């Protein structure tokens, strides 16, 4: 219907548009794919995924504000809830490599002079020409591809940053530029900047323990608990960070405390990842493994708790499952095509056994 025809009938263009509503939240195919991949990798952190996906969509359609980073995100929440892991999952989804991002551990920059490690020493200062700056243009562009001019930059534990790093950070978040020690300029307008903080960790820990004991509290992680954790983290952030910092943020996401069933999902994902890793590493000589439910329970007990979430889970799986399997391969007890079953003995030690196909079954197959 043309505009003229509409006005003849006394209908304005604005009213006609209402009859054909548009969906501003609909994502394009690449963004949907990213969202799908992230949801398959990250457990229970939908708000973080939504925030990342939205910024990615803005970047893809070229609507990111000029002369600013693509997005500035602050991730708050308890230890081991997956703040850094979301960035790793995003790097893996976009670049095929979970390490395809630059990580600045702010705890390493607590002293004023340590800023030189990040931007290099100026001429005339000790270390000029010797200290290689971490945030060079070359370093920022290293993961970019012809199709994807995007860099993921993570500032971990920003509450530990020195004042010098804070000043640097404010400039980056506002103008997407950085001047190095040698006076060269770095453009960060293609960066998606993530900052993580455990601010409020002590209060969150108190909430988690609740003064009623460890095990009792573990079962009480629910929506109300998440909201209290969220409020605590945001209040702590507002107390610690200046308004000019908070104003530069595009999104603040408070990570949810993982419930026991969600920790179980994390474990399943980690075990799948280990199987995938082994398959990729050994290629055609692949073998498979499976863990008994009691083993999964044991791994969860060893690798997770309300205070530290799933922080130690990967390490516990690596030390107990991966190293155990590697030692069996080293001694020739596992060959290509084998299926290994992992159980737990009465002494609490993991046991490994090879699944043997029964003779009658083999005969039937033949």
């Amino acid at each position, binding site marked *: 219907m043309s505009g003229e025809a509409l006005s003849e009938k006394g209908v304005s263009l604005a009213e006609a548009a209402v009859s054909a509503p548009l969906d501003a939240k609909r994502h394009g195919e690449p963004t949907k794919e990213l969202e799908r991949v992230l949801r398959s990798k990250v457990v229970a952190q939908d708000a973080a995924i939504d925030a990342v996906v939205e910024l990615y969509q803005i970047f893809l359609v070229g609507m990111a504000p000029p002369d600013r980073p693509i997005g500035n995100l602050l991730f708050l929440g308890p230890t081991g809830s997956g703040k850094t892991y979301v960035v790793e999952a995003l790097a893996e989804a976009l670049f095929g490599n979970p390490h395809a991002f630059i990580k600045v551990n702010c705890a390493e920059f607590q002293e004023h002079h340590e800023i030189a490690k990040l931007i290099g020493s100026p001429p005339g200062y000790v270390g000029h020409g010797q200290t290689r700056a971490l945030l060079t243009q070359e370093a920022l562009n290293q993961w970019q591809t012809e199709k994807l001019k995007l860099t993921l930059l993570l500032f971990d534990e920003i509450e530990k940053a020195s004042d010098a790093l804070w000043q640097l950070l404010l400039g980056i978040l506002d103008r997407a530029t950085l001047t190095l020690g040698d006076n060269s300029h770095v453009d960060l307008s293609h960066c998606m900047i993530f900052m993580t903080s455990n601010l409020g960790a002590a209060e969150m820990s108190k909430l988690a323990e609740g003064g009623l004991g460890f095990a009792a509290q573990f079962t009480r992680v629910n929506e109300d608990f998440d909201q209290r954790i969220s409020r605590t983290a945001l209040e702590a952030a507002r107390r610690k960070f200046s308004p000019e910092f908070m104003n530069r943020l595009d999104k603040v996401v408070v990570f949810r405390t993982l419930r026991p069933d969600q920790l179980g999902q994390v474990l399943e994902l980690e075990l799948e990842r280990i199987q995938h890793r082994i398959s990729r590493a050994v290629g055609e000589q692949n073998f498979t493994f499976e863990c008994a439910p009691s083993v999964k329970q044991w791994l969860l007990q060893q690798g997770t708790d309300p205070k530290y979430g799933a922080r130690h889970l990967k390490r516990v799986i690596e030390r107990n499952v991966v190293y155990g399997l*590697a030692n069996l391969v080293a001694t020739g007890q596992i060959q290509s095509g084998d299926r290994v079953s992992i159980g737990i003995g009465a002494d609490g030690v993991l046991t490994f056994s090879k699944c043997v196909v029964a003779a009658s079954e083999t005969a039937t197959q033949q």
Partner: protein
Amino acid sequence: MKNILVVDDNEMLCRMACDILNHEGYCAVPATSVEAALEAFEQQSFDLVVTSFHMPGMGGAELARAIRNRAPGFPIIMTGFEPVDCEHATLFLPRQFLFPSLLEKIGACLLESETRAQ
């Protein structure tokens, strides 16, 4: 990032060990024979070699000797089922308990090597 050459005729172990080392932040390169290892050693710079003692043809001892002829004192970790006396290796690790010992020993060897270089 430290470069490590892993030599073992058991291809599955060789690749899996490399995967574990890569996971720990090293850059590990696999070689399934002494010949392939020596070729890699010529072409690339390594900080440490992990090699199996028993391999068909030339074994770990020959590899260690060849490497030490090129680079005296080069850190080499030898693995095997029974302790062997190899003058050219820095230390020996039993294969039954390869992990996590290998990671601890690699860390110690690299540290010692760096200290000596300073």
